[in-house]
């Protein structure tokens, strides 16, 4: 190559741009967001349905169990209409944080399962879980009330709804049932006293002959 051409090539080389702030000092851009996974959307919908349709939702810690023990536990819970649900934490957490169950968020860390049921049979659930040492109750949300483990135990000790309803009704109906006897109390007392008096007089007259005719039966008269 001719010397002049060499010089020209050296002069006209590429110079890279040098911004005032080097790129490595700037935070990298957030990058392309991963598109919504249809499967994740389906799972989120299922979580929302579960939270909407069930009255009792218990969150339990789940340690690995033998498979047949798991099947037995599920069977016993199924008998009481309690279902065992597994959800991924990364799906449940966003769903909960945007619903009104925000206070349940600390429970969804680590390995857990959900026991859901449209009825609130806490006593049977606790009995089954007592027989399974690998599943420990962490907390529950029963009828939109968040309960801790102690709260669930207390809830289980409560009498069933029908019995307590019957008790309440009985307690409320006790007073009106006494109204009738209270109103008739005075007249009944007087009637009893008069009857006793008549009996005394009859006994006295029977002993000492019949000096006088029978006492004119004086009816107490219309009070």
């Amino acid at each position: 190559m001719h010397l002049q051409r060499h010089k020209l090539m050296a002069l006209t080389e590429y110079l890279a741009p040098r911004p005032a702030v080097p790129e490595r000092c700037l935070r990298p851009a957030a990058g392309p967001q991963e598109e919504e996974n249809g499967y994740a959307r389906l799972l989120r919908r299922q979580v929302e349905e579960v939270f909407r349709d069930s009255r009792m939702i218990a969150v339990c810690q789940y340690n690995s169990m033998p498979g047949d023990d798991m099947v037995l536990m599920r069977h016993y819970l199924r008998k009481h209409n309690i279902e065992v649900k597994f959800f991924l934490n990364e799906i449940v957490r966003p769903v909960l944080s945007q619903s009104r169950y925000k206070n349940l968020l600390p429970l969804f860390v680590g390995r857990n399962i959900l026991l859901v049921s449209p009825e609130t049979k806490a006593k049977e659930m606790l009995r089954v879980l007592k027989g399974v040492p690998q599943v420990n109750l962490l907390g529950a949300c029963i009828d939109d009330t968040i309960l801790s483990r102690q709260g669930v135990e207390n809830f289980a000790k409560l009498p069933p709804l029908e019995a307590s309803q019957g008790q309440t009704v009985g307690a409320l109906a006790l007073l009106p049932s006494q109204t009738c006897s209270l109103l008739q109390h005075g007249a009944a007392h007087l009637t009893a006293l008069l009857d006793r008096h008549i009996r005394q007089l009859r006994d006295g007259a029977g002993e000492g002959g019949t000096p006088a005719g029978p006492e004119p039966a004086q009816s107490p008269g219309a009070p």
Partner: protein
Amino acid sequence: MGWWRLARPAVAGGGAGGAAPRAALRSWAMPPDYSGVTFPERTKLKFMEKVPAVPKVQREPRRLRDIRGPSRDATELTQGQYGILALGGGYLHWGHFEMIRLTIGRCMDPKTMFAVWRVPAPHKAVTRKSLGHRMGGGKGPIDHYVTAVKSGRLVVEVGGRCEFEEVKPFLTQVARKLPFPAIPVSRDSLQQMRREEEERRLNNQNPWTFERVVTANMLGMRKYLSPRDLELKGRYWGKYFLKHRV
């Protein structure tokens, strides 16, 4: 559906708490769509003759300008999805053709992939004088035939129901053996290369470019440069393609 059935350790999901390794939701990528791929009749590379059907009687001059500069033909991928791009000029003779044909034929699967030539069979006659003789005595007889390849031309194209990563190993193997620098390319990588070239040209901070100096004939530079340097713009020197230059 439960997490205990997923493989561990899996890709970390959203910002959920918990110690690693954690199981996360597996995202299933869609398999690639090969619906638009049409296979030619013969999937393997055609055999290229050493000598054209009508051998040349008249010996032709050397004409090295068929190596110089950028290529005008076969610069884009047409039938296949991947190919070998020449980054320099050179001549391909029958030995190169056989090497390419046999290597690609050995490494590809004729049921799922196909390969086509993008260069013609050797047609240019190259003469050689016998060894050990002094200069003079006329032009030597025709020794062999070659095809001229300019830089930016595709040599072979490969396509079919395959990914670039499957095809790349044997295409690089072939590309290394060619007499000029070559690289395997796919449609995306070719576009990427062209885009990067354009970006470099645009964000060059040097106010003095070869093109500018030559077109304005600054300092009488055209005395030392060739008239073809107006088109070549300092990116080509003989058969070489200077990739680092803008």
